[in-house]
């Protein structure tokens, strides 16, 4: 007897590659492979540590300011690829810019991961590599992995 029509076909490796690849895109894997700004700043600067109590991941961010400019920043993490890649991409994007600019980028990232693909109206060019995070909207369980970074960075920026 053939299966009822509404039963989905078994997942094939090809469709898995397509679906998972949309989360683990080359941009994200590249930042995970060779993270930018991972480490500790040589200049003493306070670190903001954030944890995800549900999974146990830990992220710490240091920001060195020169007036309203982000002169340098660095992160350390014991976390998944999404969190580490997000930290690498975010710091790459905001270092050298102003604090208000960084806050605007964070707001865009947070909107990006909550809005269905193609509906955010966000200028992808302005976000740089961070636009790869648009795929996270399809993985609600993984939004917290991005938010670990945006929360830590928001707090780091609020620290004088």
């Amino acid at each position: 007897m053939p299966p009822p029509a509404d039963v989905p076909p078994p997942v094939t490796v090809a469709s898995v590659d397509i679906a998972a690849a949309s989360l683990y895109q080359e941009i994200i894997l590249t930042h995970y492979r060779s993270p930018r700004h991972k480490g500790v700043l040589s200049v003493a600067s306070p670190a903001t540590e954030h944890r995800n109590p549900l999974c146990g991941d830990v992220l710490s961010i240091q920001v060195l300011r020169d007036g309203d400019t982000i002169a340098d920043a660095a992160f350390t993490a014991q976390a998944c690829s999404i969190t580490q890649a997000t930290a690498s991409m975010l710091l790459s994007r905001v270092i050298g810019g102003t604090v208000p600019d960084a806050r605007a980028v964070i707001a865009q990232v947070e909107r990006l991961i909550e809005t269905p693909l193609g509906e955010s109206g966000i200028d992808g060019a302005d976000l740089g590599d961070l636009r790869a995070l648009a795929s996270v909207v399809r993985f609600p369980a993984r939004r917290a992995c991005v938010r670990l970074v945006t929360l830590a960075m928001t707090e780091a920026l609020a620290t004088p």
Partner: protein
Amino acid sequence: MTALAPRSDFPLLANDPALRYLDSAATAQKPQAVLDAVEHFYTHDNANPHRGAYALSARATERYHDARATIARFIGAQDADCTLFVRGTTEAMNLVAYGWGDRHIGAGDAIVVTAMDHHASFVTFQQLAARTGAEFRIAELTDDGRIDMTSLASVLDARVKLVAFPHVSNALGTINPVDQIVSMAHAVGAIVVCDGAQAVPHLSVDVEALGVDFYAFSGHKVGGPMGIGILWGRRALLEQTSAWQFGGDMIDIVGDQVTTFNSLPHRFEAGTPNAADAVGLAAACDYLTGLGMDRVRAHEVALTATMLESLQAFEGVRIFGPMNATDRSGVVSFAFEDVHAHDLATILDEHGVCVRAGHHCAQPLMRRLGVSATARASVWVHSTSEDVAALVAGVQHARTMFADATAR
């Protein structure tokens, strides 16, 4: 290897033929018999137990009473009145901590847990110690994820009033030597609180023979409904345990200033009981009895051996807990250096494979293992070697994806 119980016994699995559910240690899927029992209660027997004088209420009371007797039999409890209904293991541990602990533990005393205790036990007794001024001591583990008996012996002395440990570790799968721990604890005059949440669904449990003083488990991990569980205790200890929730059902005479309390088990079951789910849990026990707990155990040992063997073949894998399938329940926790547990779980999900990724409510254990999270696959009566094969294929896929990424 085929399933011990047909997939068709579990409506959720029957409705999703491609799903590979390897997270029974988090919560079990529900047999049709359990869903039928709950529905039958609401459609034929529903009234408030212990209250009405009419026949329907008497029937509801009887169903609730029968459920308790069935569950007591399932865990080897001779005195069904010492088998208390609670929401689950967490509430059971809190009942022991507030009801027995606050009354019998004080400054100068000590409480012992193990480094593999679930937060339900670890945090509850840590907070009992903080509240009473007692010293909180932790028995450490061996490298292969067992309780280190030398460490346990070193934290036991006459000051210790309570020893808590899991019958089976939820994060490692280790089956602990209950009799040995009980005799060590009793030798210093401590009572023993055993967390059976990961044992009752998988092993034949006889609380009297185990020799423990309190034993707790959650119904939802046994295939029963969520929100119902059991605390079993020795009558002598329950008689010395204070009620910790007050209200209807648990009282004897309510005076204007003073109230006297009901007998066991009612003294610990304030308010309208969760009778329907108690009936559902009894049905789950009957379902497992029908399968035979010895056969359940043999089925899981075989699948666990396959999981251990297949996962060990991956380069760079760390498997936690004893490497012998007969020393653990159907739980395998593992981690890779280059693939984080959450990334692994996301990729496995795309293969239709459900595993748990995280700290498994055992952060003290994760610190000792030196990881923030592990992936955990767990089997039960409906699991098959096809489920395990899907897990292994998914892990292979994740490894390939991240190996490409980490190739410099």
